[in-house]
């Protein structure tokens, strides 16, 4: 099913917010990457068609923003802040623990397609270092390996329970 067939009403509501249609490109790309798992070439062309834009304009936008994924990612995208001050408050230890527990390094996805690990810049929650976002939900004060284990297990359970996940954070509640 195409994006329009599946989410036509939502797309119309998004476009109606703006004086110019083109402004809807980020929200539609968010929608598209949730639908297809990442921004496939076809997904970006679909968004271009909906907004009457040349596909290259959409490709350019997708390449510019860090939360738009042009490569396949896991069902959970884990983004650990490694900026200052987090870098000096346990971020490197947190990244090392996650790498060790998942058996991947930064910018990789687990073989089961569950987790992608990334480093990101300041998440504007520095008083809760070390922290990460999982599909743009905050998980704060992750100071011990036990907390990491609990978090990974909880995220895995949520995915396996059939909960609808959004790598674009469209259902984020925390």
């Amino acid at each position, binding site marked *: 099913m195409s994006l329009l067939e599946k989410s036509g009403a939502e797309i119309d509501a998004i476009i109606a917010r703006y004086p110019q249609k083109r402004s809807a490109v*980020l929200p539609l790309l968010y929608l598209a990457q949730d639908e297809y798992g990442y921004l496939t070439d076809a997904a970006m062309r679909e968004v271009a068609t909906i907004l009457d834009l040349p596909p290259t304009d959409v490709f350019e936008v997708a390449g510019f923003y860090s939360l738009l994924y042009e490569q396949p990612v896991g069902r959970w995208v884990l983004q650990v802040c490694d900026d200052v001050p987090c870098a000096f408050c346990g971020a490197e230890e947190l990244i090392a623990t996650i790498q060790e527990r998942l058996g991947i390094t930064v910018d990789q996805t687990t073989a089961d397609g569950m987790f992608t690990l990334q480093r990101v810049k*300041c998440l*504007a*929650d520095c008083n809760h270092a070390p922290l990460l*976002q999982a599909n743009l939900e905050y998980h704060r004060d992750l100071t011990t390996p036990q907390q990491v284990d609990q978090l990974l297990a909880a995220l895995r359970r949520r995915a396996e329970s059939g909960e609808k996940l959004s790598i674009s954070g469209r259902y984020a509640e925390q």
Partner: protein
Amino acid sequence: MPPLTEHVVLRDLDIVNIADFDVYLQHGGYEALRSAVTEHTPADIVQVVKDAGLRGRGGAGFPAGVKWGFLPKGVYPRYLLCNCDESEPGTFNNHQIIDRNPHQLIEGIAISAYAIEAHTAFIYVRGEFAAAARGLERAIARAYAHGFLGKDIFGRGYDLDIFVHRGAGAYICGEETALMESLEGKIGQPRLRPPFPAVAGLYGKPTIINNVETLANVPMIVRNGAAWYRQFGTEKSPGTKVFSIAGHVKRPGNYEAPFGTPLRELLYSPDYCQGIRGDRKVKIVVPGGASAGWLTAHDLDVTMDYEALAAKGSMLGSGGVIVLDETVSAVEVAYKMDEFFKHESCGKCTPCREGTYFLVKVLHRINHGHGRKDDIPLLHDVYNQMAGNCFCLLGESAVVPIRSALRLFPHEFEQAISRAGNGHAIPLIPAH
């Protein structure tokens, strides 16, 4: 300076559940909007904001009322933009405001939009604030349902729509013209100025852009008056500021304090951060986000206002105070900070795109024990070529960490380099 008995912006600390619409109403919520729309002209509101001396909290400290006065007369439509891109490292006060006191922001946006005669406002929220953006949307829906937004507000014929627009991960989109490009559906690269946004901004129309904290002050100013507001802070920096303090302090967090509060008090007082973890010594304080010049333990008596910090060669900036103790290496801090700017450079201009690349390359090798004999003059050379030549302030800001580090801690660079093979060059890839 005594701490506040009541907060102006972080009223979530005084009133339980103020994020709830009904609680906000019980505490006088939306009364300032009612008074503005039913009893005052837009010009009255601009005047009281000018009289209060409200300065923009997004970094530059420009007086909000004066900026509003730059709109060309008789040109419509006009737009109001609320800047909630909040991506300056060490800064997290907008985040708390939209999470815990969203209605005060929404009311501030509505009053400000009325003042500048705009009928559409957008809140540009950084993409990572996904949950908070949803919360804002729910809060806006409540305000619509009660007739505080939408058509014919308070029966006075004033219409206003507020929309939340999520960015998608890019610090540069906090720069006002890049934000407009991004909101127009393009990549976030800054525009050439002039024309300034007040003349030709979003969609080429007159546009006012203000930070979340700036706009969240407006209902309290309209409600209590300019004289009340000016009882806080200093003559040139009136009011209070929400300082985000993080790093090696005992109790990191957001603290709202009058402008002019000494930095030492914020770091050590039981009312604020309660001192440094492990009672160690302070080494570096970056008082206004990563773009601000570094201070050291010798500077803690500086007062936190625009003038005093500028006199120290630093700036109040975003109010994000990064505190690092004696366990950190100045080389590593400079490396990590400039890595941020390199990562976020939009690539539009050469001095910033290439300059940040070279700074990070050289800092990386020094920090990892492969520094070369000529690296210190090389670093000076690179940032001097950047300074004054970048298209926007992001590139200029990238100069700040490395220049601060080399000025304040030159011996650490020398030591790091001399440890790398007795001062001789060690190539990254060994030659055969």
